[in-house]
């Protein structure tokens, strides 16, 4: 009886709140991939994907069985995606595929140029037909810088090789029309979203400056332009200028998403521009206009923190140390390569010029070249088609002998908090950075910041409602307040419905002090029961339930849900700072372990056995 009346009173109090904020105003989480290549990408084609075109890519993403481009097996994703961008390389878009599959009509050149082209194509054809296409790919890769200047584009090895096809506009036009038409055919508002896009593949002297460009618009706008490739310019500023010009001409909208900063040789998030000039307010503004988010994790490595980050026990996660080059050179991790250091650089630059050029949100995506967006370790179909089966994973990839299919892992996903699963709403969520990254599992992560949340907010039935009412969501700004001593963060992480439990939630804080010195600190803020933080702030490892003979794990450790309110214990209202959450799963089997079991091979051969999958929220910034 008592319980009855308590509940009754509760109803009276909260009814007003229910009426004030109808639940359909709230965001839902959607998972997708913004970075996938089909057989139209030259490197996908040269690495044995000669049949998984955009149609296959969308069918796979929507959960339908498809044919694998190389081994011809029937394959199917376990949990379908909510959205997908087929982002083929703009450079010679589909040209090599169309030539070698005999669907292209090449424009006439002079006699000598035609002859050279003929020789080159015949050689390439011969290599492709005799199963050595990847050699053609390696041959076309850039070489490391030989000069001493800062700007890699100005280096003697920074020049792009012209394959001498002549004018390929017509072929690219046909291919682009197919990419656009296929996206239109698969777009189902509310159910599945296809976004139109491509990749700008600038790699001067082996420095990866790649960006995926996406638009929320449809065929009516997208057929009015051809994708901008790095053969036109390798400078990001020229890409942005083209985006601005094309937006003005066609009325469309664009966004560029940098990725694989881990392979940028320090240039992706440098302290100066690519040309070595000081970053100006104008530059920072343009960059933030077009690049509000960054792809922080993917098959070719994780770019969250420097592998040697001090005091970060979980750093050096899926570090990938192989540049995109014709031959390898020593890998050296630079602050401009990783997002945590980049976020700090951004704060320093803001202190100097007033605008932060690196105030970005975070997503993950696969960058798979098989047409199959596979971020599931137990259902991973490779970076390229030729490293998609256990027996083909030990060969060298991308021209580097130390690098094979086991150097990479099945990663990642872009998680989006949006009102609806439509092009407009997903693009809008990207723009307001209300997005986060996962390395594959569908971990749900909510984060809000406020100067004061109601008591018990962490155990409230509807965290979202409290979050939006009292605070700002991930990707937002917390403005100064005179009433409170320190900001509060409301977080909730839930395990993948069909996946492993969670180990812990950490808060990563970066700031710049009065002397301009950069700092970072990691706090364990929520964890599964049975463990205590020790005097040094450390938390015991969660354990490992992975059966080495089957690859199966047990959810007997970890928690299915972790929620908390965290207050920054070392807050200084005079220092600008950023805060982002990192959620760790309990250990599960990496694709390499399944391969080792299947091949009955030595574990050393296949690399790491287990992986602690994770999610990274977009940061929330505090500005005094």
């Amino acid at each position, binding site marked *: 009886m008592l319980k*009855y009346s308590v509940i009754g009173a509760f*109803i009276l109090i909260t009814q007003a709140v*229910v009426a004030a904020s109808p639940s359909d105003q709230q965001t839902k989480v959607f998972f997708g991939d913004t970075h996938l290549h089909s057989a139209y990408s030259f490197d996908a084609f040269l690495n044995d994907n000669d049949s998984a075109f955009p149609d296959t890519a969308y069918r796979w993403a929507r959960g339908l069985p498809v044919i694998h481009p190389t081994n011809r097996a029937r394959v199917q994703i376990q949990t379908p995606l909510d959205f997908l961008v087929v982002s083929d390389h703009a450079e010679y878009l589909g040209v090599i595929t169309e030539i070698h599959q005999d669907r292209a009509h090449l424009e006439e050149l002079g006699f000598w140029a035609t002859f050279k082209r003929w020789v080159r194509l015949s050689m390439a054809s011969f290599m492709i037909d005799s199963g050595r296409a990847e050699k053609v790919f390696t041959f076309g890769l850039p070489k490391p810088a030989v000069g001493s200047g800062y700007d890699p584009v100005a280096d003697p090895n920074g020049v792009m090789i012209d394959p001498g096809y002549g004018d390929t506009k017509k072929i690219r036009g046909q291919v682009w029309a197919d990419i656009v038409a296929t996206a239109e055919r698969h777009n189902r508002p509310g159910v599945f979203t296809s976004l139109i896009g491509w990749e700008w593949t600038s790699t001067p002297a082996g420095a990866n400056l790649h960006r995926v460009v996406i638009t929320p618009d449809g065929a009516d706008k997208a057929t009015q332009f051809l994708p901008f490739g790095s053969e036109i310019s390798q400078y990001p500023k020229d890409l942005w200028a083209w985006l601005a010009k094309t937006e003005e001409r066609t009325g469309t909208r664009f966004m560029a998403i940098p990725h694989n900063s881990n392979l940028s040789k320090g240039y992706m998030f440098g302290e100066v521009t690519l040309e070595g000039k000081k970053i100006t307010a104008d530059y920072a503004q343009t960059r933030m206009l077009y690049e509000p988010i960054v792809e922080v994790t993917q098959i070719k490595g994780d770019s969250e923190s420097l592998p040697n980050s001090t005091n970060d026990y979980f750093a050096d996660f899926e570090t990938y140390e192989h540049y995109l080059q014709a031959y390898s050179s020593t890998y050296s991790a630079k602050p401009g390569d990783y997002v945590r250091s980049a976020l700090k650089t951004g704060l320093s630059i803001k202190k100097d010029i007033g605008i932060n050029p690196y105030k970005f949100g975070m997503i993950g995506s696969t960058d798979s070249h098989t047409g199959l967006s596979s971020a599931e370790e137990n259902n991973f179909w490779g970076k390229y088609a030729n490293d998609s089966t256990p027996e083909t994973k030990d060969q060298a990839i991308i021209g580097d002998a130390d690098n094979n299919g086991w150097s990479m892992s099945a990663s990642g996903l872009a998680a989006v908090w949006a009102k609806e699963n439509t092009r407009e709403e997903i693009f809008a969520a990207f723009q307001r950075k209300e997005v986060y990254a996962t390395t594959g599992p569908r971990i749900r992560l909510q984060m809000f910041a406020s100067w004061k949340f109601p008591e018990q907010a962490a155990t409230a*039935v509807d965290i979202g409602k409290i979050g939006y009412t009292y605070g700002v969501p991930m990707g937002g700004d917390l403005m100064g307040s005179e009433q409170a001593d320190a900001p509060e963060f409301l977080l909730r992480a839930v395990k993948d*419905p069909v996946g492993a439990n969670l180990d812990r939630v950490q808060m990563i804080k970066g700031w710049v002090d009065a002397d301009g010195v950069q700092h970072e600190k990691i706090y364990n803020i929520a964890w599964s029961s049975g463990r205590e933080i020790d005097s040094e702030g450390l938390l015991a490892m969660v354990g490992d339930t992975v059966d080495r003979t089957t690859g199966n794990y047990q959810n007997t450790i970890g928690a299915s849900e972790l929620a908390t309110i965290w207050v920054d214990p070392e807050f200084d209202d005079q220092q600008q700072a950023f805060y982002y959450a990192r959620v760790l799963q309990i250990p599960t089997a990496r694709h390499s372990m399944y391969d080792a079991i299947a091949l009955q091979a030595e574990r050393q051969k296949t690399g790491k056995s287990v992986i602690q999958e994770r999610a990274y929220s977009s940061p929330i910034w505090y500005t005094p």
Partner: protein
Amino acid sequence: MKVLYRKLLKEPLIQFLLIGLALFFCERWINQKDYSDDQFRILVNDQIIAQFMQQQVKKFDPLKAQQQVELLSDVQRQRLVDDYVRGETLYREAKALNLDRDDQIIRRRLMQKMDYLAQGFYDDIDAVTENDLTTYYNLNQQDYKKPSRITFTHVYVAFDQKKHDSEASAALEAGEILKILRENNIPFEQSGLYGQRFLYNRNYVNRDVDEISSHFGQAFKQQIFDLEFERPQWQGPIKSSYGWHLILMTHKEQAYIPPLSEIGSIVLADVQRQRQQKVKRQAIQKLQSKYEIIDRDQRQ
């Protein structure tokens, strides 16, 4: 002299030589085309150029091509002629050397080309009528089946709360809440005021079986789809992998096949694709019918 002549004629060797000579000249005469200088002549005219152009662009419209050739400037026309001649020379020389025989790449190329040409017949496809659409739809209905979908809200009572030492005691609490929900006719949008926070969603609107089973487990999915549904009312509790659930279901649709009026455009695209494949298959079969197949080692 005459004797010698006759003697020689009787000589078998001479006879064979003479027959051989006759055969040789006969063959030369019958196949005189091959021995004329024609094999070293490359004939070019506008018709050939038009054909060459069509092959290059893989668009076959003779009339239009002919018009285009007439519109070519002298320089453009000469460039096409040069191209054609260069190709034809290499082609003839290679054929003369029998380079095309037993070459898998050429065989495959030629096969691909024929295959591609067969697609040229797509234009012959008749317009799809209403009747065709209905026939196809009736035959392939199963392909368009929509999965079962459900709309419900739920009140959740967890197992792992400190106050419950067993699933049964959690079930007791769930039963008490159910009573309140029923007595007060609590509507859909107020379900959030009861029970605990579930891991995933409070409300599931038009969700398919796969999603329900991934969030709640197989057994739960089966039970909720089996629930009686006449008018919306609170039911349960149903057990999931995490706890007990009280359910208010407002909509349930079993897997169904949508009517043609709803999916007309999808069916139309499928009919067209099917016809294209059929036309292509028929074209290849027609070609194949010209050949007699002799399998000398055919198994009985």
